[in-house]
């Protein structure tokens, strides 16, 4: 007999006093070899920026292991709020491949979670890497997504950074996963 879960509620507009913390954008320490910058904008169904979203990323290390013990400043977890233009950015690193439950290999990706006023439950998506075309083709999760929507999960290289916009609704709506 399992206990019923505590239901979710929105993060609301005032989480800024409680959730963000200094250097929350550094999922790995800035300056680490291989560190890269991920930047994106959160956009609503009118095409307007969402200036009060909280984005979390959670990534395995370069060997594909989630760091789930120990301490330290940069653990693979990052948390930032969007600015007045709906823009967020993180320092991350391309993780190693992780095994799927069926033993297949998952292409490198970051887990991305979205909280905002107007979301009664958080949303979970993934950011894949544009320079992993072959691994992405064989990825068991991307292959479950209808082909026309897969591109919403793959970051774009834009100068020195990776661009990953999150569209909550509308044309090119980002693919979100049930948890």
């Amino acid at each position, binding site marked *: 007999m*399992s*206990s*019923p*879960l*505590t*239901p*979710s*509620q*929105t*993060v609301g*507009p*005032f*989480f*800024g*006093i*409680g*959730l963000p913390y200094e250097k929350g954008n550094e999922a790995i320490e800035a300056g680490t070899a291989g560190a890269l910058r991920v930047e994106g904008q959160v956009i*609503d*169904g009118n095409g307007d920026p969402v200036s*009060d979203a909280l984005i*979390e990323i*959670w990534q*395995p290390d370069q060997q594909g292991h*989630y*760091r*789930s*013990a*120990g*301490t330290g*400043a*940069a*653990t*693979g*977890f990052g948390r930032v709020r969007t600015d007045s233009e709906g823009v967020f950015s993180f320092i991350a690193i391309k993780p190693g491949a*992780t095994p*799927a*439950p*069926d033993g297949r290999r998952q292409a490198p990706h970051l887990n991305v*979670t979205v*909280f*905002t*006023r*107007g*979301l*009664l*439950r*958080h949303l979970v998506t993934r950011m894949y890497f544009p320079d992993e075309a072959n691994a992405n083709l064989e990825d068991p*999760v991307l292959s*479950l997504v209808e082909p026309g*929507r897969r591109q919403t999960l793959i970051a774009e290289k834009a100068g020195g950074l990776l661009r990953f916009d999150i569209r*909550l*609704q*509308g044309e090119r*709506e*980002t*693919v*979100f*996963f*049930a*948890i």
Partner: protein
Amino acid sequence: MNEDEREPPYLYPDYVSTRLRSPVKPLVRLPDGFHDFPAPLFPRAIGALDSDLTRRHEGEPIGERIIVSGRVIDSDGRPVRKAVVEVWQANAAGRYLDQNDQHPAPIDPNFDGAGRAITDDDGQYRFVTIKPGAYPWKNHRNAWRPAHIHFSLFGNQFRSRLVTQMYFPGDPLMPRDPILQSIPDQAGRDRLVCFFDPERTEPEWALAYRWDIVLRGRAATPFETPE
């Protein structure tokens, strides 16, 4: 009712902000196990004072001092140990310190309204704070949020992540609040309301409220070996 049907929907038009922010396309469901990986390791130290919101400034905050405590378990009833619990709330006058809060109620210089705690080996957490006030919002005419404390939790699994709100028993604003009413069934809404806790109430000092929290555990698989 399955787990999903007990949760609020993404689109709940009475809560106006959901209309442009809820995904229209169905979420993609992955086979069991794809989200069975550990929760993030919270990258900041949490100290004992972080869970006492009344002792972080020179003076004491205005308002009714309360103790809010409870137990975090997973859906199999096991205590969730070393879970990070984060809270934020309005002050006794119904005002958040957040710069986006324009409600013309006073700011309390002795209250910032944010705290963190870690659960012990039995899954217990405890905060000392003051009872938050109700406040108006612009969702509809004469809309007021019932008094609540925001909670954010990491369990042991990525799937355990929960952001929610705790309400107080007997608040007449609850039946009129579209955020709480977005939860489809009364039993689910009741799970967000704390209980007055005479056992933990401290004489001559503070009323106590108890609120237990149930997080998702691992997806069930028949092959899982007992830990």
